[in-house]
């Protein structure tokens, strides 16, 4: 949650990528992810990752920040990749001291492939969210045909994410001024769990009350069930088409290389 503010700050920076139309970036990121999860060639995925790093560089995002974000999301996928060598079938290339543990060649390859797929996909999301503000992302999704009801819910949720982030931080600050630390093992676990429950209750009630306030203020501004969200007309220009064409060309070329060269 702490990263939310950082992500939004990065997404609002001025850069070549930030100035592109949100729809184009969304479609490009989705194409890359779909290609990555269906690709079975680690070298191709490596080239895809280099292309994404270039896009992140063009988004004026610091490499350290991008790496940190990728590293934060990788553990689950990384763990799944790391266990592959131990149970996938294949030729045994290493046997452990007690003979029940072994590593297979195919398992090693498959683990590396999964790690490459996960890394490219996560990098793609890091690129997308670093180059596109959340509001722009939702507006782009709506323009691309996401049902208006879902788009409206997403739009409202995005607006209130920061409000709840502040609320949560306020609650946690208030707790820490009273020396409450949820990870402090000197206090009884049951008591700590109860405190978490009470914090969540507070958040839940605030969400309910905020929902009522939002509804009233929306009604004051003329909201009804027939209300449709305003959509800013964004024109897709040459640089947008050029970027999308480049991405499609990269994917197409890599596929040709996979089929005829490697």
């Amino acid at each position, binding site marked *: *949650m702490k990263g*939310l503010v950082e*992500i939004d700050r990065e997404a609002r920076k001025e850069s070549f990528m930030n100035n592109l139309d949100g729809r184009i970036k969304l479609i490009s*990121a989705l194409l890359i*992810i779909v290609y*990555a*999860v269906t690709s079975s060639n680690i070298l191709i995925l490596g080239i895809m990752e280099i292309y994404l790093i270039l896009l992140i560089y063009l988004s004026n995002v610091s490499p350290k920040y991008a790496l940190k*974000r990728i590293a934060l*999301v990788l553990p*689950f*996928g990384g763990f*799944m990749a790391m*266990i*592959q060598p131990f*149970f996938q079938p294949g030729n045994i290339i290493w046997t452990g001291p007690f003979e029940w543990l072994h590593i297979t060649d195919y398992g090693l390859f498959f683990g590396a492939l*999964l790690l490459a*797929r*996960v890394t*490219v*996909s*996560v990098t793609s*999301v*890091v690129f997308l*969210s670093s180059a596109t503000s*959340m509001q722009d*992302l939702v507006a782009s999704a709506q323009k691309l045909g996401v*049902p208006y*009801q*879902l788009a*409206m*819910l*997403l*739009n*409202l*949720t995005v*607006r*209130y*994410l920061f*409000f*709840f982030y502040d609320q*949560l931080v306020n609650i946690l600050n208030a707790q820490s001024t009273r020396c409450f630390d*949820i*990870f402090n093992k000197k206090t009884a*676990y049951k008591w700590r*769990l*109860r405190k978490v*429950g009470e914090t*969540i*209750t507070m*958040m*839940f*009630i*605030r*969400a*309910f009350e*905020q*929902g*009522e306030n*939002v*509804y009233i203020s929306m009604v004051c501004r003329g909201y009804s069930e027939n209300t449709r969200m305003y959509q800013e007309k964004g024109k897709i220009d040459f640089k947008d088409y050029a970027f999308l064409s480049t991405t499609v060309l990269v994917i197409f070329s890599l596929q040709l290389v996979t089929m005829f060269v490697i």
Partner: protein
Amino acid sequence: MHVPDGLLGLTWPIYIIIAAVAVIYSLKWASENLDERNVPLLAVLAAGIFAIQAMNVPIPWGTSGHMVGAALIAIIFVSPWAAVLVLSIVLILQGFIYGDGGITALGVNIVNMGIIGGFVGFYGYKTLKGIGRIPAIFIAAWAATFLASIACAVELSIAGTFPLAAGVASMGLYHAVIGVIEAVITVVVILGIDRVRPDLLPDWISSRKTEAV
């Protein structure tokens, strides 16, 4: 339980289709069963659940986890579709903003946490409420988390990325404990709302019974 991209092999489109149908149905449910006041409420509540999921809770053996909230939403809104809708919004944003849970894996994550979590939570409570409010909430919330994790292990096994027996054992054991935490927090939250804002709770979960006029 947030499955990332790349672990589902070629099975991911199946879950995307199931999740898309469920989300469309949940939107239909919202427009037919909720008045216009509840639409912004659902959105704000999704933002609240997003924040709640960011709160890490320590787990006895040293790691940490977070609440999912599907059973809580399903019980409070008296419908599993509310959980499907709210969790879908949360998972879409987590996937696209944080990369927490994949984009092609969005379908499987909605199926596990939204659909299985919501339906098990709702029907679990509905079936068990005869044994008492608190035990019924507890078991329903625990089962929602536990069964969603078992489903996750089965799905990864079908995709060939995790052996079934080891997956069910490890995911099941881990989430059996996480489920207890989810269950305790769900009970504490519902009792807390009941004490502070009982008007927010539906009759089937409230300690106050509606007086006959």
